[in-house]
């Protein structure tokens, strides 16, 4: 089984960790986020420290610094996705263009709701709009 190491860090450690990993030539596998059972946002930056994954978690923050200046598109694409679908703000990230959502949803209530709202509520909200 592949090894997965969870490491909890503070918001101020996100950039130093990314800089260290980049310097060591480690791949940023992915940036994930979800609402934990307490309803707080759990964001994780997963680095391939082969053969393990080192997963650095920040819990309870919805505004965090971008690491896209360190990891380029490997970071900016997942950051843009998490902004659109979960409403997390990445300070310093260029959000002038959409990634997944239609242009007309960027400034509306649709943004940031996809993973926050229960599926039943989403269905109710979109009732009659489905083709």
């Amino acid at each position, binding site marked *: 089984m*592949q090894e*997965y190491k969870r490491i909890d860090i503070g918001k101020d450690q996100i950039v130093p960790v990314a800089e260290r990993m980049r310097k060591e030539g480690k791949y940023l596998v992915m940036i994930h986020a979800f609402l934990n059972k307490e309803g707080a946002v759990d964001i994780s930056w*997963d680095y*391939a420290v082969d053969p393990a994954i080192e997963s650095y978690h920040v819990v309870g923050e919805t505004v965090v610094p971008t690491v896209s200046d360190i990891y380029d*598109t490997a970071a900016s694409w997942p950051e843009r996705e998490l902004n659109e679908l979960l409403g997390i703000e990445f300070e310093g990230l260029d959000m002038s263009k959409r990634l997944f959502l239609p242009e007309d949803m960027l400034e509306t209530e649709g943004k940031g709701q996809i*993973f926050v709202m229960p*599926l039943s509520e989403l269905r109710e909200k979109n009732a009659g709009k489905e083709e």
Partner: protein
Amino acid sequence: MSYIIPIGPYHPSLEEPIHAKLYTEGEVIKDAEVFVGYNHRGIEKLATERNAIQTLVLVERVCGICSHSHAFTYAMAVEAINQIEVPKRGQYIRVITAELERLHSHLLWMGIACHIIGHDSMFMHIWDERELIMDLLEKLSGNRVNYAMVTIGGSRRDISDDLRKEILEGCAALKAPLDRITEIALTDKTIAMRTKGVGVLTKEDAIRMGAVGPHARASGVKIDVRKDAPYSSYDDFEFDIPTVESGDVFARVVVRALECYESIKIIQQALENLPEGPINNGNKLPKIKEGQTVARHEAPRGQLSHMVVGNGSLTNHRVSIHVPSYKNTPTVPHMLRNNTVADAGLIIASIDPCFSCLDR
């Protein structure tokens, strides 16, 4: 004269949706942007209402080409959270299916690449040989796509002795046509003129932008999850990771051709040493224990990762799927710069993109 040329989102090069904007000076592309999201189906969200067995069926529908890779990776994540050991025979069958999938995926892409450059006789030749693999997959699983070979705790279908011999014979029979395809790919003037020096991604840029799979290996980056973080039974097999340094479209053709040989080697070793015993551990419908993990698999296009969070219930609390095209597609604008408009379709297709995977 400067123009902005829109390409897509309807089938710009492959039969999948992506929108590209090319900022050109005459025929030369000076800058480019890509836009995705035309095939977003909310699969991650749907997974939060599915149990583990239903999710296997769901994640197989992320992609028609690498469907087994998604089921394989999701199953590994749940097995890691629940501490489930997969019987060795089940592991081998998963690997055999994964490598057959890689073979058909690489041959499919090589055929399409030839079609895009106008070499249609080569396209038909490659796809004809690919049918051999598709037939084997059909005999193995009953399907040409969405094989449903994986269950939590092992594989769903066994390989009989007759089928074992048939797959071995099929792999042996593929070698001669593969030699011919590789020889043509390496020596044909048409292929060389259309692909050499086109859409270059340097090793430094590949690492910086996080390129993965054959796309990264064609830029000289030797990464492969099967070697870097061995999983399932990949440790049991001897195989190489081919790399090419030039980083152009030609290198991407060569890497994929060479990888086909390595997949054949793995399949042959797995079939010749197929362990006796059960193919799964009889799990029916597991509750996904409280926990979180990331499982990684080297899919045909590169590293595929599934992050699964369990909360002790039958359903997933969160499934986050990240596919190789997610890392490789952002390199496209970079590769398009200073190439001609005529090569744009080929360059977009050269990463073997899967926007169905990317959008989920």
